[in-house]
C-alpha cells in the first residue's frame, strides 16, 4: 500500500489530467456516436470554465454548484449554436463548429471580465482526484446504460443511416441537436473541473489545438465507444511523460503513433476487441465506430 501512496504523491496531477481529458473525450464521443463530427468541445469547456471560475471567485460557491451552472451555460450556448449547426452535414458541420470555437476565443480575449490574454487567476483549487473520477464513473455508467434505452438505439440508428432512421420514426435533427447540447454540457463539466484544478485559465487553453487533442483521444481509443474515448485519453495524456527521455523529439513519436493507429486500427484500440465481425456478435451498437459513411 505504501508504494501506492508514494506513487500518488508523485503523479496525482497526471492522474487528474487523465481523468479530465477522459471527460472531454466522452463529451466528443456522444456526438460521434450520433454520427456527426462537432469540433467545439474545447470552446464549450472554456465557456463553462470562465462562468464557473468567475462565480467561485466572486461568490465562493462549492465546486458542484459552480460546475453545474458552468455546464448549464455551456449547454445553453450549445443549444443556440446547435440549432442552426446540427442541420449541416459532414465536414460542413465540423467547420462551422471550428468557426464558432475561434469566435468564442476572440470574445474571451477581448472581454475585460475574463482578464483577456492575461487570464484569470486565483481560481479556488477545489478539484480533487476523487471528484474527477466520480464524475467520470457517473458518465461511464450513463453511457453504458444509455445503449439500453430507446434514445441509445435512436442515436445508433442515426449514425448508421439518417434517412433509414427517419423512416422508423426517429427524428435525426432532434437526435443530433440533443447530442450536441449534451456534449456541450459534458465538455462544460470538464472545463470547470480543469479551471478549479489549475488555479488559472487563459483563452489559449481552449483553442483549436486543444480541440485536436480531444479528437485524438477519441480516434486513438475508438471513435464512437465511450470505453475507447477514455482509453485514448489515458494513453495520449501519458505519452509525453512516458517518452520524456526523447526530450524535443517527442512530437515525432506522437505523430507516428497517431498515424499508425488511424491506419492499422481504424476502430481505435478499443475496437480491437470487436475486430472479428463476421459471425461473432458485434459489440452493442454504441461501440461501432463512426468512420466511413
Amino acid at each position, binding site marked *: 500500500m505504501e508504494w501506492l501512496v508514494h506513487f500518488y504523491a508523485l503523479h496525482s496531477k497526471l492522474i487528474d489530467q487523465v481523468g479530465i481529458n477522459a471527460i472531454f473525450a466522452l463529451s466528443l464521443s456522444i456526438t460521434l456516436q450520433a454520427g456527426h463530427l462537432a469540433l467545439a468541445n474545447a470552446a464549450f469547456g472554456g465557456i463553462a470554465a470562465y462562468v464557473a471560475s468567475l462565480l467561485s471567485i466572486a461568490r465562493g460557491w462549492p465546486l458542484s454548484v459552480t460546475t453545474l451552472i458552468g455546464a448549464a451555460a455551456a449547454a445553453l450556448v450549445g443549444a443556440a449554436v446547435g440549432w442552426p449547426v446540427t442541420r449541416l452535414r459532414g465536414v460542413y458541420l465540423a467547420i462551422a463548429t471550428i468557426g464558432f470555437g475561434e469566435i468564442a476565443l476572440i470574445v474571451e480575449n*477581448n472581454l475585460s471580465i475574463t482578464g483577456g490574454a492575461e487570464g484569470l487567476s486565483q481560481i479556488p483549487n477545489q478539484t480533487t482526484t476523487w471528484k474527477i473520477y466520480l464524475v467520470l464513473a457517473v458518465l461511464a455508467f450513463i453511457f453504458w446504460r444509455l445503449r439500453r434505452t430507446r434514445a441509445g438505439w435512436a442515436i445508433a440508428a442515426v449514425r448508421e443511416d439518417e434517412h433509414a432512421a427517419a423512416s422508423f420514426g426517429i427524428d435525426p435533427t432532434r437526435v443530433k441537436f440533443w447530442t450536441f447540447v449534451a456534449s456541450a454540457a459534458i465538455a462544460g463539466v470538464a472545463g470547470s473541473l480543469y479551471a478549479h484544478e489549475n488555479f488559472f485559465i487563459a483563452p489559449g487553453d481552449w483553442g483549436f489545438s486543444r480541440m485536436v487533442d480531444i479528437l485524438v483521444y477519441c480516434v486513438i481509443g475508438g471513435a464512437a465507444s465511450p*470505453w475507447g474515448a477514455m482509453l485514448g485519453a489515458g494513453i495520449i495524456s501519458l505519452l509525453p511523460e*512516458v517518452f520524456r527521455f526523447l526530450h524535443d523529439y517527442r512530437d515525432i513519436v506522437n505523430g507516428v503513433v497517431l498515424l499508425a493507429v488511424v491506419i492499422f486500427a481504424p476502430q481505435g484500440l478499443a475496437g480491437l476487441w470487436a475486430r472479428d465481425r463476421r459471425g461473432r456478435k458485434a459489440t452493442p451498437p454504441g461501440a461501432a465506430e463512426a468512420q466511413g459513411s
Partner: protein
Amino acid sequence: MRNITRVLIATAALGGTLAAATGAGLAASHPDLKWTAIFDSTGPAGAYGTSQKNALELAAADIDAGKIESGGQKISIDIQDSATSPAQVINIMQSAFGNGTSLIVGPTLSSEAFKADPLAVKANVPVMGVSNTANGITEMGPCVFRNSLSEAQIVPDVIEAAKKSWHVKTAAIIYGDDDQFTKADYTIFNADLPKAGVKVVDVETFHKGDVDFKAQLTKIKEAKPDVIVYGALYAEGAKLLDQARQVGLHGHEIGGNGFNSPQIIALAGKAADGVIVGAAWYAGAETNGNAAFVKNYTAKYSKSPDQFAAQAYAGAQIAAAAVKKSHPADAAGMCSALKQVGSVQTVIGPFKFASTRDADAHGFVVQIKNGTFSKFE
C-alpha cells in the same frame, strides 16, 4: 457481462501505462544539489524556451568548471521540455519534488507559472522564474522568486527617454491582444503614457501569427502620432517594422520587451533602425562577465543570445551565489539561501531581490542602430 470485462480491461491498461510513466521519473542520481529547469523548447513558445535551455546548459557547464562559483558544492541541473503545455509543466514539477529537487527554474510562460508554481509552494520547493513578467507571480508563495524585470519596471524609463530626446506629445499603440506578453505591454504603456503627458491617439490590435498589418498601420498613419508603440514579439515585430516603412510611416518607434531580440534585427534589417526598446539586458551591455557569456553562447549555439538566454544564465548565477553563501542542503535551505543572497554581479548587471522577491534592478533603454542594440542617449 461483456461490458463489465471491457471496463476492467480499460482501467487495467490505464494502470499499466501509469506504472511505465513512473519508471522514467525515478532514476535519480545523488549530487549535492539537484535543480530542475522547465522550459518550452518545443511548441509555439519553442523559440524562447530553446534560448533558456541553451543558456542554462552553458551555466551548468560553467558551474561545474567553476567559472560560476558555487562554493565547491556540486549542482546538477535537469532541464526538461514542457512543449508549451501547462499540463507537462505540472507533471515535470511534481515528479521533480519526488526525486529531491531543491530548486525549480522556470517555467517559460507566466500562464504556466500561475498553474504550476502553487504546487511548488505546497511542496515547499523554491521557484526561480527567469522570464515571467506578469504581475502577481511572486505573490503566489513565500519561496517564489523571479529575476525577470516586469514591464512595469522598465516602461517608465523608456517613456522618459522618448520624451526627453524626441519631445513626443501623442502616441499610437499597436499590440497583440491574444498573448500575455504583448497584452501586458499594452496595459502598462496605455497607463504610463498619459501619466507622462503623452496622449494616446490610436490603439490597434492584431493576433499572434498574423502576417499582414498594413490595414492597422494605414489607420495609424492617418492619426499622425509622434511615436508608435509596438506591443509585439520579435516575429510579428519584424513584420510590423517592415510594413510600417512600406506604408510610409517613418516616425519615432518604441518596442515592447519582446523587441529585445537579435532575431528582430536579422528579420527586419534596416527597417529596425532607430527603434528604442526598454530591456532588462542587451548584448552590448558592459555588465560583469557579459562579453564572455555572449562569446561562449554564440560559439556553442552558432547564434547570439537573447534576453531570455541572458536572464536564464543570470538566474543560475544568482542561485549559485546563494549556494556559495549559505550551502543549503535541501529545498527549504535553498529558499532561505536565496532570501539572503544579497547583491550578485550577473550578466544582466548588479542584481538583488526586492522585499517582494521580484527583481530590484534597473533596465536599460537601448536603441537599434546599424544592426545592433546600443545605449540610447
